[in-house]
């Protein structure tokens, strides 16, 4: 719709103001990370430095927490992708009698707040002696991100035409060969979307490892960021900012790489099309 000049200026002005408000807290992080004398407030650094980053990167315990984070999130994402591809296949290709109830349950589970089950999960971990076991934490987070992943994966798979697969079957291919040769390649963008979506969600997860992991040397980066606060009384803002940038960068980059596909899977748009 065409709008008047004044109105257009007002729209732009409001958006610019909002944009500034949105960028201020993040801008501080970026600027303070290269400021040799970073403080709590946003200021132009008198001296630019990479010392903060060097400090982070030369600390073996921080590097270890990053590696643990990569291990936990990577492992979780791979499990989730494999399991959700397997689960999406029959939901998209076959007509099991329990399909409807299964999908409704999945959809119901996607929106439940995970915070609410952590206490019984912790108790389960105590009983089975899973506390501090990284693989157990990985399986738990994989389980909780499965519903959404299955849902997204099914929608992506629905958009791969069955005819292609059928013609492969006619040529004598088995179901497995059909999946490997036809479905999997066409599903690649969808698979990456689920992978990245799961990875970003897991990378940012503070709550679960904070509760389920107790040894400091097994904490992922999302938890070790805490060490910049509290313990010393005095916060090293430069290093905190550098840590935050290093910790946030991977997911921000991954997100932008996949944004085009992400919005498709994310809108739950397929939900209404079935």
């Amino acid at each position, binding site marked *: 719709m065409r709008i008047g000049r004044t109105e257009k200026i007002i729209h732009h002005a409001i958006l610019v103001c909002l944009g500034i408000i949105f960028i*201020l807290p993040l801008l501080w992080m970026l600027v303070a990370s290269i400021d040799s004398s970073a403080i709590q407030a946003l200021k132009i650094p008198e001296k630019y430095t990479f010392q903060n980053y060097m400090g982070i990167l030369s600390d073996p315990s921080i590097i270890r927490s990053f590696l643990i984070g990569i291990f936990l999130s990577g492992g979780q994402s791979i499990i989730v992708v494999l399991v959700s591809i397997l689960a999406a296949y029959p939901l998209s290709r076959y007509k099991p009698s329990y399909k409807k109830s299964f999908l409704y349950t999945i959809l119901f589970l996607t929106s439940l707040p995970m915070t609410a089950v952590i206490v019984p999960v912790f108790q389960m971990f105590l009983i089975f002696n899973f506390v501090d076991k990284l693989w157990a934490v990985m399986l738990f987070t994989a389980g909780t991100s499965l519903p959404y992943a299955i849902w997204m994966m099914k929608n992506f798979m629905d958009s791969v035409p069955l005819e292609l697969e059928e013609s492969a079957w006619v040529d004598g291919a088995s179901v497995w060969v059909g999946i490997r040769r036809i479905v999997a390649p066409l599903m690649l963008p969808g698979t990456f979307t689920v992978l990245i979506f799961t990875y970003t969600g897991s990378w940012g997860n503070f709550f679960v490892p904070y509760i389920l992991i107790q040894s400091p040397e097994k904490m992922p980066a999302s938890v070790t960021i805490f060490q910049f606060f509290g313990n010393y009384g005095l916060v090293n803002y430069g290093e905190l900012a550098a840590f935050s940038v290093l910790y946030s960068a991977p997911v921000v980059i991954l997100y932008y790489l996949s944004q085009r596909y992400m919005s498709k899977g*994310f809108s739950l748009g397929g939900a209404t099309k079935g």
Partner: protein
Amino acid sequence: MEVTPNISGKKKISDNIKSSIFLSPALILLLIFFLTPMLLTIVFSFTNLALTGTQAQNLKFVGFDNFVQMFNDAELYNSIGKTLIFVLFSAIIGQCFLGFLIAFLMKGKNSTFRRAIGITVIAAWVTPEIVVGFSWVAFLGDNGTLNSIITALSGIEPIAFLFEYPMVSVVVANIWRGTAFSMMAFQAALDDIPLEVEEAAVMDGASRWRIVRNITIPIVKGTITTNLMLVTLQTLGVFTLIYAMTGGGPGNATMTLPIYMYQQAFVSYQLGYGTAISLVILIIGALFSLLYLRFLKVKI
């Protein structure tokens, strides 16, 4: 797209068997790590489960004791109230409204401009929650960015936002973080409105406000409902942001249900009572989730 099976008598049974094989890994994981804990939430809320002391070895069913305690727990009522305020202001009013506003103002603008604004809003959303928490602690601190701006502009002494206005602080931070989700949902919906519809109304001399009220909003009504549900559920479970910013305090000013549950279960070691509180969260979440399923009218 629904696949029509090749008609054969055994098709149904073989479909079920094949599907079960494919679904079994997912079912096992969901059963162990999702459905069992949900079930245990109900079971444990009837026990005296505790992390330390004699009760740790001596698990007993205590009937409705936890729930009786809940009825008499002023602190619990406080957290339910705080949760409602937090969800109402940060999710329903804040994120949903601001997301709509941004999407609405962006419509029909230069695409570079749209991208620039969109990226800043989305960056706030993609940044890990714990980092967002710390960034806002720094932003709102006595010597933080906001106070330096306020002092520079008006000369007012720095305000201790997190102590004087803790709820406002966490609500604003959560709006800041979550708005991108609503913005993206509304952008998609608004872009789908055919230009002619609104243009015809302009021709008829309708005012801007009337067009929004009588045309735009009714068309995106479905998106508004869906978005409200999702955002409410997401906000209901928020723990990390509040924990990093205020820890539920000062006093109990920002003690929402997830924080109170954490306090009871992992600080006071009353796992049984903590589970009873999580049951409350789970029930609220389940009710919203069911409402959501109804409104979405999913065709499976």
